[in-house]
């Protein structure tokens, strides 16, 4: 008891003394010095202090600082300033005089060089976005299809009757699509000749899109030309219900949120029957296109990570008779497809700057085709598993590595009056990759990667190095270079008949210049691609009697130009893309090297958006131009020796905000009704004069109209579906 009283008294005394101490007891040390940038320019306003104390000061106009401290012994001096790396130094305070401190620039800042060769980003998070997420759905020609919006970027070719992505002289199969880093096996809705397909997945579930037209990361393989990376939204903003009523069907969406998780579901029904009844097209539809689609995203937040699960189901059904030069009664085609895709991924931190990403996807696709009297039944089961680790050593050095497994099981029945065949294949590919990013300074960065793949089917091992460097040439401009080797197996069209093949490959060489300032972007990219070991067969169509080989080859080279300006004209945002392409290849059934019909020399897209405040409307327009595409005229010697006339289409859209939550939307594609010709079909036998007759392949309809009404119901009444259009 006694002691504690003494203690108390002592405590009180010391406390009183303590509050006076700064002015009396402790000796003061002065800490002083100068803070500059690496090149010696003084920094004004840097924060200089001793860690864990209140002692510190801001630097003056000459970068000088000086302050007193009562601390003694070894302390940590901290110097921090916006856009620079924080500097720390531990030393005895008595040594902290006349310091000269040079701050290193923070390479995380917006003006650091980015490796941009080959890559287009559509996201808000990236430093250089050529497209914004909204653009995917407000581009006039796109009709809400993300693939349609990407077709306005350079490097793509206008193949309007197909609808898929054709990149830099590559065919559509050379582009692979990934959702949250996990492969999508059948990204497009099924279609038939001359009817363009669409992306299967609704754009409003994604908030980041990266489209690479070459030279992409070692993380991605089995794509000769291009990868498209889609990221689903991590966390929806609020609970809501979306209702869409369209001239071609309806859509219903709902989002629910909980403390740690959220669920978004979306259902769409499309039926073209009423539309075709009003605007008949060139096909004779027995069963107009009808599709049901449902999608769901579930997200759950853990303390150190995020789990996402995405699932999509769709069913498509149609039957039609298409004109055919060899069949006066027309070609009867029917299709029924059921497709289920699911994808689960987890990304989280492991501590010590380690990050883990893992996930898998699974697809079941069942297609029943009827072509005249032949019936074809396809069944494809595919899966992809991936595990990736990422370590951040510092802001400047990052390493990632991982492994993945692809499994495909394909089976097909073919039967008509005389033939019954069953064939298929099983394909397992194992891959490993490693990649490092090194940012040497704000001006210079390098990415080095290596990917190895083993195919069980071919018993073949491939290695593909990838390298990109970027150098900043001025405040707003930079140059990038990229090189990479890319391998891809022949697709199921060949593998179902022959397994004794090997992977096709390309090399990409890319030189990119980019200028960005004040909401303006200019990009110019020159590239060269060498194709080797392309698939070749000796029949008109791949079939069970074909002889397959890897003796094909080819090249593609060209220049892509992109300009976007959101600044010069008030309320107007526009972009212009131009691509020049020179390519020849010998592949599939080509007897000699030739420019394939999906590759044309010149492509131009102009897209504009105009916001009219008084009308509460956004009006958009887009024009697509593609120079003529090749076709073979059997009346003349040669192969793919002639070209069609050029392609033109101008589209308009108008989104009118009735109120914050109700939108009326109208669009028309090919408003000026250009008569486009995609190619020609020649008769298989000549007529009495020895002349092969032909038929122009024209789009099923020259124009397309769309009207929709979109209504969002949410608690606070401000959200709407403009981002869906």
């Amino acid at each position, binding site marked *: 008891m006694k*002691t504690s009283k003494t*203690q108390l008294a*002592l*405590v009180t005394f*010391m*406390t009183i*003394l*303590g*509050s006076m*101490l700064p002015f009396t007891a402790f000796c003061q040390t002065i800490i002083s010095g100068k803070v500059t940038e690496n090149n010696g320019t003084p920094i004004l*306003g840097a*924060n200089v*202090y001793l*860690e*864990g*104390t*209140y*002692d*510190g000061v*801001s630097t003056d106009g000459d970068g000088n600082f000086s302050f007193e401290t009562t601390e003694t012994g070894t302390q940590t001096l*901290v110097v*921090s300033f*916006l*856009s620079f790396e924080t500097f720390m130094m531990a030393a005895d305070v008595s040594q902290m005089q006349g310091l000269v401190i040079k701050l290193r620039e*923070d390479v*995380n*800042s*917006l*003006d650091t060089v980015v490796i941009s060769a080959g890559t287009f980003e559509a996201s*808000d998070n990236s430093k250089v976005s050529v497209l*914004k*997420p*909204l653009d995917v759905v407000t581009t006039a020609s796109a009709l809400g299809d993300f693939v349609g919006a990407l077709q306005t970027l350079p490097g793509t070719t206008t193949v309007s009757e197909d609808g898929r992505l054709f990149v830099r002289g590559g065919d559509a199969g050379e582009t692979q699509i990934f959702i949250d880093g996990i492969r999508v096996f059948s990204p497009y809705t099924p279609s038939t000749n001359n009817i363009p397909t669409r992306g299967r997945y609704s754009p409003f579930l994604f908030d980041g899109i990266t489209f690479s037209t070459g030279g992409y990361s070692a993380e991605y393989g089995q794509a000769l030309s291009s990868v498209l990376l889609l990221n689903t939204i991590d966390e929806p*903003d*609020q609970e809501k219900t979306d209702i869409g009523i369209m001239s071609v069907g309806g859509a219903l969406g709902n989002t629910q949120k909980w403390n740690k998780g959220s669920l978004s579901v979306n259902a769409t029904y499309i039926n073209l029957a009423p539309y075709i009844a009003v605007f008949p097209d060139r096909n004779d539809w027995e069963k107009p296109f009808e599709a049901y689609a449902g999608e769901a995203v579930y997200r759950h937040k853990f303390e150190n990570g995020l789990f996402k699960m995405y699932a999509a189901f769709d069913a498509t059904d149609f039957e039609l008779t298409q004109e055919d030069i060899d069949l006066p009664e027309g070609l009867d085609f029917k299709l029924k497809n059921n497709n289920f895709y699911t994808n689960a991924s987890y990304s989280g931190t492991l501590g010590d700057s380690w990050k883990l990403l893992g996930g898998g996807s699974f697809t079941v696709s069942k297609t029943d085709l009827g072509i005249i009297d032949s019936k074809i039944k396809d069944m494809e089961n595919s899966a992809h598993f991936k595990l990736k680790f990422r370590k951040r050593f510092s802001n400047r050095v990052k390493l990632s590595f991982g492994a993945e497994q692809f499994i495909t099981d394909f089976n097909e029945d073919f039967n008509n009056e005389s033939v019954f065949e069953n064939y298929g294949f099983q394909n397992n590919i194992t891959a490993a990759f490693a990649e490092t990013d090194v940012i040497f300074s704000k001006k210079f960065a390098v990415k080095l990667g290596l990917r190895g793949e083993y195919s069980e089917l071919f018993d073949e091992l491939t290695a593909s190095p990838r390298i990109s460097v970027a150098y900043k040439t001025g405040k707003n401009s930079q140059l990038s270079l990229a090189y990479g080797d890319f391998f891809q197996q022949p697709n199921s069209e060949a593998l179902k008949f022959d397994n004794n093949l090997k992977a096709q490959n390309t090399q990409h060489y890319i030189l990119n210049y980019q200028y960005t300032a004040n*909401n303006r972007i200019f990009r110019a990219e020159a590239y060269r691609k060498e194709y080797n070991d392309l698939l070749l067969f000796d029949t008109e169509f791949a079939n069970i009697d074909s002889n397959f080989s890897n003796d094909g080859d080819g090249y593609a080279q060209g220049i892509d130009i992109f300009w976007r300006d*959101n600044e010069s004209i008030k309320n107007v*945002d526009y972009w212009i893309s131009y691509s020049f392409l020179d390519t020849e290849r010998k592949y599939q059934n080509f007897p000699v090297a030739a420019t394939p019909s999906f590759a044309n020399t010149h492509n131009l897209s102009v897209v504009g958006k105009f*916001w009219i405040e008084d009308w*509460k409307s956004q009006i958009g327009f887009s024009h697509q131009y593609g120079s003529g595409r090749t076709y073979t005229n059997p009346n003349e010697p040669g192969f793919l020796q002639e070209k069609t006339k050029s392609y033109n289409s101008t589209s308009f859209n108008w989104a009118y*905000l009735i*109120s*914050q939550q109700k939108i009326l939307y109208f669009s028309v594609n090919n408003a000026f009704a250009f008569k486009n010709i995609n190619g020609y079909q020649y008769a298989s036998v000549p007529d009495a004069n020895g002349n092969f007759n032909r038929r122009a392949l024209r789009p099923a309809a020259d124009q397309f109209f769309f009207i929709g009404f979109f209504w969002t119901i*949410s*608690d*606070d009444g*401000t*959200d709407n579906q*403009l*981002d869906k259009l």
Partner: protein
Amino acid sequence: MKKLTLLIIALVSFTGFSQSKYEDGMRKAFELWKAEKHWEAANLFERIAAADPENWLPPYYIAQINVVYSFGEKDETKLTAQLGKAKEYINAAKAISKDNAEILVLDALWHTAWVAYDGQQYGMKYSPKVAQLYQQALQLAPDNPHVVFGKAEWDMGSAQFFGQPLDPYCKDIQRAIELFSTFKPESEFHPSYGESRAKSLSEKTCK
């Protein structure tokens, strides 16, 4: 025993010492801010935040200075860095003080700064987020004038954009002004801004 005594002395004198230092520091920072040396004030708040990591107010003010002075900033590099720093400290403040309506209001203001910088790009993206943050803040503190006024001002902006009547929001602002008149911040360092702004907005827009 002696050791314990010394420890207690050390502890007590340290806390007493640091309490007064904290108060001196905070007062000094507000003085600098008033004298329009807001970056120096931010630096001082940063030093206080580093020395006193359990208090949400210093990071709150660092974020607030960075957000407030980003309005009108045209240089995207600078704006991105500044708002990046603000976000970092908003997250720090949220980690210290969970379910704090004042921080949510600041977070809403952070998103509003992006909308103000480029409405075309960020308006559609961040509007629902801002609305959701105010909604959440309102649930936590229905009678906090900062929440009521912040929400009213944002809603009014949206209504003006869509050409809708402003009357309901004028009522909200009026209510905020009433709440301001009786509002007592928890301490001299707790947020106490906004009353004069609410009055001038009400005079300007609500007649």
